[in-house]
């Protein structure tokens, strides 16, 4: 059986006045049916662009310049807009970061849900409305009939994100791409939405790519993690494996910068420096200027190599010891 999603050597570039920014450079990934993948990175690492590339929603001046995205065996890059349109909202859905911005403020919820149903299913407005209502119930929205007739501004942030999730679930897609969907929400609501998403995906066998900068959020959710830096994956493996034994110095830094809440007064470690500008990337390993282990061997860029079973790392000096107990997030 083919993988649900296979990305080979994806190149997504933005043409700016100052040159070409390679937001995603040679990214390869794969995803099984029903699997949850956490795509982790700082802002500017290319994680969101990767999500948009899969859906063919990269806006000019950006474009997918190369590579293949195989969804259920079908190449989306070669298929172009026409193939894409059939999948968007139907088999691949997306949830965005800011629920305040994702629902159109001047259209009622029923309009925004019914149009989604009717975009892919030739059903009456009444049938579409019934499906919309069911979807709202599934994401835990009470009195859905009233809610359907409301405008987005009459909802709280968490409610709006639930509506967005309900819209994503309308066609029971095979894959949902969630771009930091809880970042803009309160912590308690964050936790609720996280567990609901997990349950909904498990129920329907939907695969999920959860894009985030927050390791703590995704570690309790994802089966596998892929850590991105400067448009590349620098480490990939099972969630448990990466959290307990990060091999790339950047991943290790990320984990160590997550607050543990165990001992008061212990300083959080930081990764020195900032994400490099995509227009002026260093030669060789992109992380080398910030890396405590960097030396001359890092000059040619290291390939993403399988170091252990199911664990790929892009580093010539990987850590091989598990994290000390007190540093590992619970």
């Amino acid at each position, binding site marked *: 059986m083919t993988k649900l999603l296979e990305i080979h050597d994806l190149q997504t570039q933005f043409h700016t006045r100052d040159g070409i920014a390679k937001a995603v450079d040679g990214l390869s990934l794969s995803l099984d049916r029903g699997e949850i993948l956490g795509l982790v990175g*700082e802002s500017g690492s290319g994680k969101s662009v990767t999500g948009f590339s899969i859906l063919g929603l990269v806006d000019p001046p950006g474009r997918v310049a190369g590579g293949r995205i195989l969804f259920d065996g079908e190449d989306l890059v070669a298929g172009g807009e026409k193939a894409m349109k059939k999948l968007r909202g139907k088999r691949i859905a997306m949830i965005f970061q800011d629920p305040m911005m994702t629902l159109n403020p001047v259209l009622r919820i029923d309009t925004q849900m019914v149009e989604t149903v009717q975009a892919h299913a030739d059903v009456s407005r009444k049938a579409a409305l019934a499906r919309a209502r069911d979807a709202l119930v599934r994401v835990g929205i009470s009195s859905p009939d009233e809610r359907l007739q409301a405008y987005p501004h009459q909802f709280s942030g968490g409610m709006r994100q639930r509506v967005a999730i309900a819209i994503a679930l309308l066609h029971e897609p095979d894959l949902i791409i969630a771009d930091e969907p809880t970042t803009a929400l309160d912590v308690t609501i964050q936790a609720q939405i996280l567990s609901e998403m997990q349950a909904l995906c498990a129920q329907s066998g939907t695969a999920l790519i959860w894009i985030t900068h927050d390791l703590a959020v995704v570690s309790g959710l994802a089966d596998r993690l892929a850590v991105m830096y400067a448009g590349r994956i620098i480490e990939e493996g099972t969630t448990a494996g990466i959290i307990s034994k990060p091999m790339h110095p950047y991943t290790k*830094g990320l984990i160590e*910068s997550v607050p543990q809440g165990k001992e008061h007064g212990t300083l959080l470690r*930081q*990764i*020195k*420096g*900032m994400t490099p500008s995509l227009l*002026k990337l*260093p030669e060789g390993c992109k992380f080398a*200027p910030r890396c405590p282990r960097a030396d001359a061997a890092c000059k040619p860029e290291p390939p993403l190599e399988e170091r252990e079973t199911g664990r790929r790392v892009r580093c010539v000096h990987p850590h091989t010891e598990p994290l000390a107990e007190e540093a590992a997030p619970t």
Partner: protein
Amino acid sequence: MTDAATDDIPAPDGPVAVKIDSPAKRFAREFASDPIAVVGLILFVLIALIAIFAPLIAPQDPYDLAQLSIMDGGLQPGESSFGTGMTFWLGTDTQGRDMVSAIMYGLRISLFVAAVSLGLAITIGTVIGVTAAYFGGKIDSFIMRIVDLQLSFPAILIALILLALLGRGVDKVILALVIVQWAYYARTVRSSAIVERRKDYIDAARSLALSDRRIMFRHLLPNCVPPLIVVATVQIAQAIALEATLSFLGVGVPITEPSLGLLIANGYDYLLSGRYWISIFPGIALVLTIIAINLVGDRVRDVLNPRLDT
């Protein structure tokens, strides 16, 4: 990962010498980076110089009847005078007036009216706007009611009715333009002054017992200058067009002091009989002036308002 960490690493290219220019210099440099705006500026300066020095450079004084000959009436562009042999590059009107000279003098009057009304309207609008922002409360809401009321009616209507009741005259046109324009400046100045007013240093200045006037004009006003310039670049072109329109309609400047608008109106009767130049050339001068100002204004807006510069 946080910003605090950036302090202890050197910038990759080593220390960069940051040249700190005065705001005016930086403004000039940014303005000049758009060649179209520079062309507009050159054109505008040229037009302004022609207007200022019209009496010195015009081939004839178009309003000295002794220099006109009815024999030269209605000559086409490029024809020569029957009396003096002088060439009329843009033709003559029906009274034998050289159109080049008439346009130069017309520009002079058009720009004079616009500039004086601009200056007066800015002054009045600024004083009223700063007053409203500084005192707030009832004074503010009373002033802003008047501003809103006035701005809800088209400027051309207000100016037209005023002039219909007052009669023609350069001074009356200026008065009408000031009356229709002050409200724009008052509103602009008030809104930026009110933002500034809320800042702590104004309270500090008050607690130092500085006089109201000093606080208003030394502290509040300078912060209102950039938006004021932006509005002024829009309004000056509007003022020129409005004056031309009023004069074209016959309620503006008197026939003894014809602006471009009145020249166009005078030639309008001959347009249908094919003597297009009497009307068209003053019109081209008018349009060039307005376009030049708009080109400069667009760029000024972009530079002063980076938010819109996309």
